[in-house]
């Protein structure tokens, strides 16, 4: 666990810059998923700037904590975070989705340092997290494995198979983060297929659960810290978030699931983000 005290105002300012970069790269690509990328920014900032034991200079460090992005369409946020952490040059962000790029529209394992798994076919990350945790237990390697999923994503049956496996094997190294941003491609999750009560579901599957405001960095960091103290049980952090967070015309608007902003829209979005009180 990190011992430094986080500078929350600085991290909040950073989150604004990350959101701006995410939108710029999606606009440049001409396609991508702004809504689900913007909803997960604080969740990633909390991990990469505070909780995760990692070293951008040694992406293959065997004892590093792992972050597995299961909701692959959120990769603009992951790429941005990795570039800002120094895993690869920031310039490269603007190659998103355009041939010949290392930054595909959904991540390829190892395409750039720091991308731990492939994603894009939803519902698969948690099973991989479990497998890593089982191997680590055999090898007496102590590290945390975080897996970020979307709320629409957990409609996939494999997620609940994996939830049972993590419980059955008492995989306390595994921490699932649910980016509950309320929307999926064709509308509100509640309308497409209701997944509530989310926290109760995970609890019923034998998990330690906490529910937080996923945009409140203090709550995010506290949840990561508390989850890290849990023994004998996997942990689920249900992060209540807003799809398209930070841009008024994108927030909770299903139209912004998978559409790139046009130049004027980008302009407005960047200004709004800049002007918002930290």
């Amino acid at each position: 666990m990190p011992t430094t005290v986080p500078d929350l105002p600085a991290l909040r300012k950073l989150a604004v810059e990350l959101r701006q970069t995410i939108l710029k790269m999606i606009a440049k690509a001409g396609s991508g998923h702004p809504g689900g990328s913007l909803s997960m920014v604080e969740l990633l900032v909390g991990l990469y700037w505070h909780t995760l034991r990692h070293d951008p200079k040694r992406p293959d460090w065997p004892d590093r904590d792992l972050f597995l992005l299961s909701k692959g369409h959120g990769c603009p946020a992951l790429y941005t975070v990795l570039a800002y952490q120094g895993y690869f040059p920031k310039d490269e962000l603007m190659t998103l989705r355009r041939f010949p790029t290392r930054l595909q529209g959904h991540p390829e394992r190892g395409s750039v340092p720091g991308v731990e798994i492939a994603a894009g076919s939803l519902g698969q990350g948690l099973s991989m997290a479990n497998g890593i945790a089982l191997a680590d237990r055999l090898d007496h390697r102590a590290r945390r494995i975080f897996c970020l999923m979307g709320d629409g994503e957990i409609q996939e049956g494999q997620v609940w198979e994996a939830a049972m496996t993590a419980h059955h094997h008492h995989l306390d190294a595994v921490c699932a983060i649910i980016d509950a941003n309320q929307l999926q491609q064709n509308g509100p999750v509640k309308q497409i297929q209701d997944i509530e009560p989310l926290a109760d579901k995970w609890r019923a599957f034998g998990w330690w659960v906490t529910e937080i405001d996923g945009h409140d960095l203090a709550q995010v960091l506290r949840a990561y810290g508390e989850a890290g103290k849990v023994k004998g049980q996997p942990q689920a952090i249900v992060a209540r978030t807003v799809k398209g967070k930070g841009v008024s015309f994108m927030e909770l608007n299903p139209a912004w699931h998978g559409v790139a902003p046009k130049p004027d829209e980008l302009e407005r979005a960047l200004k709004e983000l800049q002007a918002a009180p930290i």
Partner: protein
Amino acid sequence: MADKPTRDGFGEGLLALGKTHPQVVALSGDLEDSARAIWFKNEYPDRFFSVGIAEQDMIGTAAGLALAGKIPFACSFSQFVTGKTLEQLRMAVCYQRLNVKIAGSHGGLSVGADGATAEALEELPHMRSLPFMTVIVPCDALEAKKATIACADYPGPVFLRLGRAPVPTITKESDPYTIGEAVIMRRGDDATIVACGVMVSHALQAAEVLAKEDIQVRVINLHTIKPVDAATLIAAAKETGAVVTAEEHTVVGGLGSTVAEVLVQHHPVPMRFVGIQDRFGTSGDPAELMKHFHLMPEDIAKAVREVLRLKQNAL
């Protein structure tokens, strides 16, 4: 040597790997007894993981184990471990080029009485269409054991198709085994039979029958469907001029299609495909079903006579 199922050879191979390869682990979805992984489980309980009846999660978990440096063998019925899991095998295993081994027991009609839903007849096109996947169908228990041991040191995803029913042991302990190298089981220049699994044994029996008619048939054991040993196939087509393929599997996209894909580009010759003719299986004794679906030595011999006629007509 006594008849023995290829799944038993797998179980013995996995058990042997337990000792020689500490990084080998195994998983099953409550079918470890059927798939013979239970022998490994009993000996190495810490290295065996039960994931419940949840094949998709099993493949994802295996991918995670491989990401962390293990060599996982994921075992179940061939139908379920390839059918329910195609998406997981594609993204989590093959796209990530992970060292995951898939063992499918009860391939083909060998599950017999259980009927069509458990009879895996379509795995080969699914598995061989995945980039980086190696596809192996051992012909007997001894070869299955060697294949299992060999694939632990063969990096990347491998699918092993195994059978439940006892089959004749037609190879010897001393026979070399190399993944990707077809074995010529019998020499002959009039026609070639290319087979895998139990059909290699049937092909050898067909060759015996044909020899009495003065037809000398070459029999190739194509135990590795992918990567395919194109050189051995092309040489056989050139030297014998007629090819019959034989598989306990649908003729759509399986061994026959694999051989045809090679020969049509390099040396087209008359061909016939012995296999399941685009049908589902049904309940019955495996031997009875093999007759019903025309997978017997006499069916192969008949196909050889047909290609020989075509070959003669072409001359």
